[in-house]
């Protein structure tokens, strides 16, 4: 795990630091060699951390591109259906910029008569066991577009330590 690797790197740099500090109080001739070794070690650790960051950044990039360029509308909401992230297809489907969807409750984009049903489905989707997908059809309406029939597929994401529950949504126009 990257976290553990990072942790071991931080421990290592502390070891080097303590070693160098101790040598300050020791005999000067010994201190010179220890300083040399310490500098080399810091350089090696630095290089390691930099490589690790490149790998992490590259992987994050790949998965965020997957999200962004998925051919269908893909949204991440909290358990109440408030949008946290939305991809390009979602923005196109609802006719608004993706950023303007963030913070907006999805239910606000459901025509009034269909809201009660939508809320009930949302509650069920949030409560379902991890890994299960809830699927249903219902009306949806972008802020500046006409209502249309949409197919929803919703799955709960595992709750991270100290984090909040999230739902991921696939939304497709079906009419």
């Amino acid at each position: 795990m990257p976290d553990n690797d990072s942790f071991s790197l931080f421990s290592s740099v502390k070891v080097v630091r303590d070693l160098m500090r101790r040598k300050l109080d020791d005999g000067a001739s010994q201190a010179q060699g220890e300083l040399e070794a310490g500098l080399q070690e810091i350089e090696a650790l630095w290089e390691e951390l930099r490589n690790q960051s490149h790998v992490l950044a590259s992987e994050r990039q790949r998965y965020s591109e997957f999200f962004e360029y998925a051919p269908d509308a893909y949204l991440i909401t909290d358990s109440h259906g408030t949008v946290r992230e939305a991809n390009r297809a979602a923005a196109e489907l609802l006719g608004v910029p993706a950023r303007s969807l963030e913070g907006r409750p999805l239910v606000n984009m459901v025509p009034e008569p269909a809201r009660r049903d939508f809320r009930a489905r949302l509650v069920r989707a949030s409560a379902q066991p991890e890994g299960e997908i809830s699927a249903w059809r219902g009306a949806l309406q972008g802020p500046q577009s006409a209502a249309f029939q949409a197919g929803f597929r919703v799955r709960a994401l595992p709750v991270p330590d100290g984090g909040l529950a999230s739902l991921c949504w696939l939304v497709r126009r079906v009419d």
Partner: protein
Amino acid sequence: MREADLKRIQGRLATARADVEGKASAQELEIALEEIQALWDELGHQADHLARQRERHTLFFERAPFACLITDVHGTLREANLAALALLEVPAAYLHGKPLAIFIADEERDAFRMHLAMAVRSPGPIEAWQSRVKSADGTPREVTIDLRPMPPDAENFLPLFWFLRDTG
């Protein structure tokens, strides 16, 4: 930027080292050590943030409520999300390193290869096409395939994303 910081600190340490016999620059060395620690802590926070973001985006892939597979330019499978595993009815360990073509129905393989070649030749949107996949036990399923080439990553790996929609 950070490398410049490291170089500056190294310079300071080197000066301190040259003088350390007289203990004249013990304080300078102490400052350099503090700087290294501060820099390292900052890098640590950045790495943690990156790791959390990567973890979060990995989940978006793995748990997406639609099937997606990642192959290289030869169509060799690198990753598949849970929905893809369910669609093909195979465990994850079985997929890695296998050609995606083995899950495409025989009569659909020419079209599959043609689209793969198109995606590799000219990275850009390719129109989705109807196809048929077969699960590990040979059961056929009608699907729509949406193939999206992605930009190469830092290691020059050009990932192809295959979005499969069950239309049966």
